[in-house]
């Protein structure tokens, strides 16, 4: 795996796109801004879903209504994160692909997506505003927030490694 990543990293460094991301000054901060805005959409929406599951906010709507409102929004945010993140990797493949913090971040991201799916499925079935969420669903919602916090922290830490 490591050897494959090293090969990939070395190949990326030979591409024109890598050169462009490295040399055109506004590219990296612009892509990072897009990345941050997408994190805001995904993290903020997850926060609202979690607050709803704990009945701390948004109780006029059922969990199913919130899921319908924000599920697609989170999905779109994840796609933007993947695209902008890939471009940032192309800019500095060595500092990302071969970096432990980055690898940890990707592992946590897979964890967040795995948590998101049963959470969304469970919310869909709670279609009355007064419906009570099972403890397991509430725990999944809290776990999702903890995972995003760890993912954001890893992301910021990559810049310092």
């Amino acid at each position, binding site marked *: 795996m490591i050897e494959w990543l090293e090969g990939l990293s070395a190949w990326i460094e030979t591409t024109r796109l890598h050169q462009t991301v490295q040399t055109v000054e506004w590219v990296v901060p612009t892509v990072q801004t897009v990345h941050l805005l997408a994190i805001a959409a995904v993290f903020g929406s997850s926060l609202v879903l979690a607050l709803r599951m704990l009945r701390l*906010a948004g109780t006029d709507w059922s969990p199913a209504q919130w899921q319908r409102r924000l599920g697609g929004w989170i999905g779109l945010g994840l796609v933007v994160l993947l695209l902008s993140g890939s471009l940032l990797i192309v800019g500095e493949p060595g500092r990302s692909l071969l970096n432990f913090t980055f690898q940890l971040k990707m592992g946590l991201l897979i964890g967040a997506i795995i948590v998101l799916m049963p959470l969304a499925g469970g919310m869909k079935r709670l279609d009355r505003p007064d419906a009570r969420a099972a403890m397991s669903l509430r725990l999944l919602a809290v776990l999702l927030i903890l995972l995003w916090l760890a993912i954001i922290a890893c992301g*910021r830490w990559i810049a310092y490694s």
Partner: protein
Amino acid sequence: MNELFEAIGSSAIGDFMAVNPYAFPAVETLHVIAITAVFGVIMIVDLRLLGLAGMSYAVTRMSRSLLPATWIAFLMAVVTGSLLFTSQPVTYAGNFSFRMKLLLIAAAGLNMLIFHFVTMRGIAAWDKDAPVPTAGRIAGGLSLLIWVCVVAFGRWIGFTMSPF
């Protein structure tokens, strides 16, 4: 003003933020968490005001329900942002992106006040399942635009000055 900034920079907190190798990245991480929470939640309210999503949730009820969490996150962004500022006060104060960011946050506050005290007066007529009047949509659109710029200028600060 510069004397005040220099005093902040040489204070115990300013010294700690500048010298301790973990202080700046740790506080910056909390700052990113706070600002993404603020913008992520405000976005949901802004899209409601623009009439693009969530029309069956009353505007008054949605803002009352979501704003407490947003204020907590905003307060956290202010505290962490101030701590980052103490690491190099004079340089931050003279940085264009930093000044723009503060100006835009003030603009976002003003936009919110105008919405709250002027536009929301007649809200009973359009609170739920009804087209949002132009003034309300302008408030939502402006808020969205301002916060996008706040995040962008925030990111640009990091590129126009070295953190240490």
